[in-house]
């Protein structure tokens, strides 16, 4: 059997036009690392231009050009100091101490779970923009079971957890069902269901049964201790559960029949149908799973951190999850790493604010920039390669020719 590559194996055959696999949206590992580095560089620039010492030195530089070297040196020195202060505070705030590490992990856990929910849908060719709504209904269900039912410890936790997962799964499966039966596009339905979820939660929070005793605020009591994750060495057990969940998602995707089906449907629904797969089943299953994972993210917050349920309880985890999944290339391992990174940035941002006086919004800018750079890989690849641009354009033409 001849094993030599033919030109066709080197220049991939053109894909049928009109069909672009969702996977072409995913960045490469190198692009991702570059994007993170570049975002930190831009962040450093922002730190510099907003640092008062640097600004003063720069004013002196402009006012007394005769002392160029003195004040120029000041500008450089203060800039370096400002960046060092900010980023070292960031690292200390994220991993520099036990409490810092704990905070990082606590913030990562929900991001990982919800990120897995977005990632698994992505692999089936679906854009799940609805992790936010799925998490919110999950939070309400888990919270309700957590603060009303009186069950023995362990069983109570399990019941609350199951309620949160089931509510999220239901909310997600709804999207799959709508898509499979009516062809409604999941981007539209997930976005709309996010709103529906928020108002459903607000509606329930307005009921007395969901409110704290003697209070009219739209906030539930925190879950009873019997319904919260036990803590070992300062860490609640939801965190290892998140990691185990990632492993389970990996197993489903790579080792199970369901994973085979959902990856096949994601890459080519027509061929999957011809091979006897049910796209209806896959869409409902995968969106149900995605919702379940988002529900688990909510449990990390409500049952892991003893949070009362409000319409803000999950923060923006559903939207950050999209970023985390994208950055993690829709793989479970990648999602865990991206979740840890965003958890660390978020925890480190607090430290940065406390010890270096840098506003925490900087971290949000850096996170947004990472996404921006990841979404514009050509931009990054071209940086610092201006001289080789000509050659690069040629290869572009070839790949376009092959891909057209």
């Amino acid at each position, binding site marked *: *059997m*001849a*094993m*030599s*590559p*033919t*030109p*066709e*194996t*080197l*220049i*991939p*055959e*053109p*894909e*049928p*036009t009109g069909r672009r*696999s969702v*996977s072409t949206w995913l960045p490469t590992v190198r692009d991702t690392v570059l994007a993170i580095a570049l975002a930190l560089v831009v962040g450093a620039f922002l730190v510099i231009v907003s640092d008062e010492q640097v600004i003063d030195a720069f004013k002196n530089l402009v006012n007394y050009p005769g002392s160029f070297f003195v004040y120029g040196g000041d500008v450089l020195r203060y800039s370096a100091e400002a960046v060092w202060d900010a980023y070292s505070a960031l690292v200390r705030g994220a991993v520099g101490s036990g409490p810092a590490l704990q905070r990082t992990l606590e913030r990562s856990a929900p991001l990982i779970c919800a990120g897995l929910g977005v990632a698994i849908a992505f692999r089936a060719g679906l854009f799940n923009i609805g992790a936010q709504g799925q998490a919110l209904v999950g939070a309400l269900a888990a919270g309700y079971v957590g603060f009303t039912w009186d069950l023995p410890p362990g069983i109570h936790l399990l019941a609350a957890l199951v309620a949160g997962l089931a509510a999220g799964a239901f909310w997600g499966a709804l999207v799959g069902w709508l898509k499979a039966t009516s062809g409604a596009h999941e981007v539209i339905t997930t976005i709309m269901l996010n709103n529906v979820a928020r108002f459903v939660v607000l509606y329930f929070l307005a009921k007395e049964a969901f409110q704290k005793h003697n209070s009219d605020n739209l906030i539930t009591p925190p879950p009873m201790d019997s319904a919260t994750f036990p803590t070992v060495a300062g860490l609640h057990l939801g965190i290892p559960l998140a990691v185990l969940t990632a492993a389970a998602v990996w197993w489903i995707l790579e*080792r*199970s*029949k*369901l*994973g*085979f089906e959902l*990856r*096949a449907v994601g*890459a*080519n629904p*027509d*061929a*999957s*149908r*011809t*091979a*006897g*797969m*049910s796209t209806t089943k896959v869409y409902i299953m995968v969106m149900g799973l995605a919702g379940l994972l988002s529900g688990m993210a909510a449990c990390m917050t409500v049952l892991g951190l003893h949070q009362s349920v409000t319409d803000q309880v999950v923060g923006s985890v559903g939207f950050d999850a999209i970023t985390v999944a994208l950055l993690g290339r829709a793989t479970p391992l990648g999602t865990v790493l991206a979740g840890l990174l965003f958890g660390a940035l978020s925890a480190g941002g607090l430290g940065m604010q406390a010890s270096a006086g840098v506003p925490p919004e900087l971290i949000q800018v850096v996170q947004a920039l990472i996404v921006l750079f990841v979404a514009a890989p050509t931009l990054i690849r071209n940086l610092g390669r201006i001289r080789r641009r000509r050659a690069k354009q*040629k290869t572009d*033409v*070839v790949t376009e*020719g092959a891909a*057209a």
Partner: protein
Amino acid sequence: MRLEIKGLTKRFGSFTANDKIDLVVEPGEIHCLLGENGAGKSTLMNMLYGLLTPTEGEILLDGQPAGFEGPGDALSAGIGMVHQHFMLVPVFTVAENVMLGHEKTRGAGILNREAARKQVRELSERYQLHVDPDALVEDLPVGVQQRVEIIKALAGQAKILILDEPTAVLTPQEIDELMGIMRELKAQGTSIIFITHKLREVKAVGDRITVIRRGKVVGTAPPTASEAELAEMMVGRSVQLAVDKENKIGGDAVLRAQNITVVDPRGHLVVKDVSFEVRGGEVLGIAGVQGNGQTELIKSLLGLVKPDAGRIELEGKDISRHGPRQSLADGIGYVPEDRSHDGFVGSFSVRENLVLDLYRTPEFSAGPALRLDAIEANARHRIEEFDIRTETPETPVASLSGGNQQKVVIAREFSRPLKVLIASQPTRGVDVGSIEFIHKRIISERDNGTAVLIVSTELDEIYALADRIAVMYDGRIVATVPPDTPREQLGLLMAGATPEVSA
């Protein structure tokens, strides 16, 4: 314009795709480039069209060295290319597509559509292309879309036209029309490089034939060379063009279709009251021009679309309401017409595609889990058995050649016991060596007693395989004839003539 290629070489890493190719195309000549899939024809043409830079060698136009940096350079030098996959904007009119990229304006940025229309009309008349400049491209049949591509190239003042596998997507009638157009172009001085692996076509229009094998020119031949000679040059060994088989009369009817009617999603009646039966151990060939209801008919047999009326029986059992999962499990093997669309998942590995409809059987799964070792063993076995040319079982199927992609589909469908095999266009876009192989496998499946239904628009294939031939026209089976029916008569039936003979 005279085109001369001297010692052109292209290497990708350690792999030499083109090795010192020499080629001369005289003005007004139809020069055929014959070779199997993967022989290096496309690489050569991509260099000629400026898409790839040669590693060594040169391209001379009228004796002057030409260095192309991109397709733009090739176009302005007078080289036009009609790709296998058309580069047209479906929602634009013909004239708009032709003007695309070099739009003429009336100043102030207003498009001068009239000029483009006029140009299309002129070229269409001059070369007898019969293209309406105001038709929307998406409404045109494939054959006409191809002519739009030719007009695009001619509008760019092409003196050398490269046609890359132009007949792969055409019906027999359209192929005849295209050949007429090629002769017309030639008569008016345009040179044509005609890339193909179909011997009949080469002999019909070619002035000179250059055969390429494994990146090298293995020889040139006049169009008077026999098909067997050309095939041998192309493949490198003698090839059996016709499958060795005896026609058979089948046993009991295994698959029976009764009064099948299918309405497509747009409300058109596409299959009209079709009845036939396929017996065990025979091949029923459904001949017909593309788009006469064959696609919908076989989809309804598998259960991909539900027939709106009629009954389908497998061994006497009604399966009209079954979906594909059930039908596949019942022992129907299915090779779809458009393999990259319906036959495999391009980004999946060869290994995964080889179990695309088998992964749920006990052989390849246990409970919710896949049995990876069994899947791997199956892949190694099938790759060997079907001679699938792939680097590893993990290679994505999208990066294999068309012939090998089809072998993956065939290998998968043949790897379980079948009662019925339904294969549509089993060798479309497949090289000669693989055609021979696939045809042999189909016949041996028949000899095992499987009822085989072949749908093909290529009469050669129908003749090679069928024990009985049913002709489909306008959604109906207009006649069922024996395999020794003359070509002309079948051609007439396919074109909708009233049947005189029916068996």
